[in-house]
């Protein structure tokens, strides 16, 4: 068979691979999926391992931070973006209210805002944005790859939605949920993003020892 390939795409030109190739690919995918499933199952602690994980991001001063910097504190993690005028500020305001209601327990909690729009949300922007809601709230950003990584670990979906022709004419669709992580960095519970500050504080107080 001809081995010419399209230099632009690298794909074989004009010749379809024989059908058994698809069978082999299918088999490989099946083996891979089974293997991954078995690994997740064997690695033990059920759903707890399915949310969260190590991350490396930048804080509002452009300084590198990792998940390990927050060990010893509970983390309340929310993903959003600063161009969001409606939903994100509403949620972050309730978070700030919840933290105010927690009393001394608030000292054990670090609320964290992670942007899903790293193209527009620079460190200084996330810093200013987070500070507008609460002096306790930390804003984090990172490279597109770092954001993709942390979003994947936290099972957070995000995508650009084009609203016009300009490069900045887009909004972000994103999972709207808060995650409470323990002082060991492990997932404890999801917190609904549409709760009031009082409801959020009650939920948090149950988990924070």
């Amino acid at each position: 068979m001809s081995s010419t390939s399209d230099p632009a795409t690298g794909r074989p030109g004009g010749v379809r691979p024989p059908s058994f190739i698809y069978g082999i690919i299918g088999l490989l995918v099946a083996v891979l999926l089974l293997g991954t499933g078995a690994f997740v199952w064997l690695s033990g602690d059920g759903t707890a391992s399915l949310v969260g994980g190590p991350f490396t991001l930048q804080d509002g001063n452009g300084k590198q931070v990792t998940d390990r910097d927050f060990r010893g504190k509970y983390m309340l993690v929310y993903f959003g973006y600063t161009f969001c005028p409606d939903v994100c500020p509403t949620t972050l305001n309730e978070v700030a209210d919840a933290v105010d209601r927690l009393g001394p327990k608030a000292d054990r909690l670090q609320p964290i805002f992670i942007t899903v729009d790293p193209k527009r949300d620079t460190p200084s922007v996330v810093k200013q944005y987070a500070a507008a809601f609460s002096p306790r709230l930390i804003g984090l950003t990172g490279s597109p790859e770092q954001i993709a990584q942390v979003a994947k670990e936290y099972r957070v979906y995000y995508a650009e939605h084009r609203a016009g022709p300009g490069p900045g004419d887009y909004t972000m669709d994103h999972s709207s949920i808060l995650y409470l992580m323990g002082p060991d960095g492990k997932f404890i519970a999801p917190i609904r993003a549409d709760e009031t500050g009082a409801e959020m504080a009650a939920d948090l107080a149950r988990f924070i020892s």
Partner: protein
Amino acid sequence: MRRVILAAVLLAIPVFGFAQQNNIRVENAWSRAAMAGRTGVVYLTITDTGVPDRLTGASSPVAASADLHESFTDHGVAKMRGVAALPVEPDKPVTLAPSGYHIMLTGLKRPLNQGDSFPVTLVFEKAGPVTTTVTVQKAGASMPMGHDAMGGMNMQGMPMQGGQRQ
């Protein structure tokens, strides 16, 4: 004579927080503190005492553009979409409030600080432009000033339907 009356009516648009033109009344307009160059938001209540109309556009001198938007959650994913027009029916006030319909300000020409006020003009298909004054609350404020939980005002208003998503 009719022209004189019309002119008098047009000139009688109040300056603060309340605007009425033809049969459209816009009130309780409020916003949230926001940074220059970024986005802002306007919430308000529209009351129609005349014939059915539609809100089709908005503008404000503080922003490069002002667009009618709707936020909603779809299977746990928060989304925001442009809305071409929002119908208003006689005697059924429509409240734009957090996590629903709002006017999104893009490209703020100056920061919006708590306590500031600025004008916004809504354009209605029949009633034409109606300008009102917007007061700025703190970042993430959930209701206009003077309508806190103690006051018992329900700013969620009635459920709104019929906006045409773009």
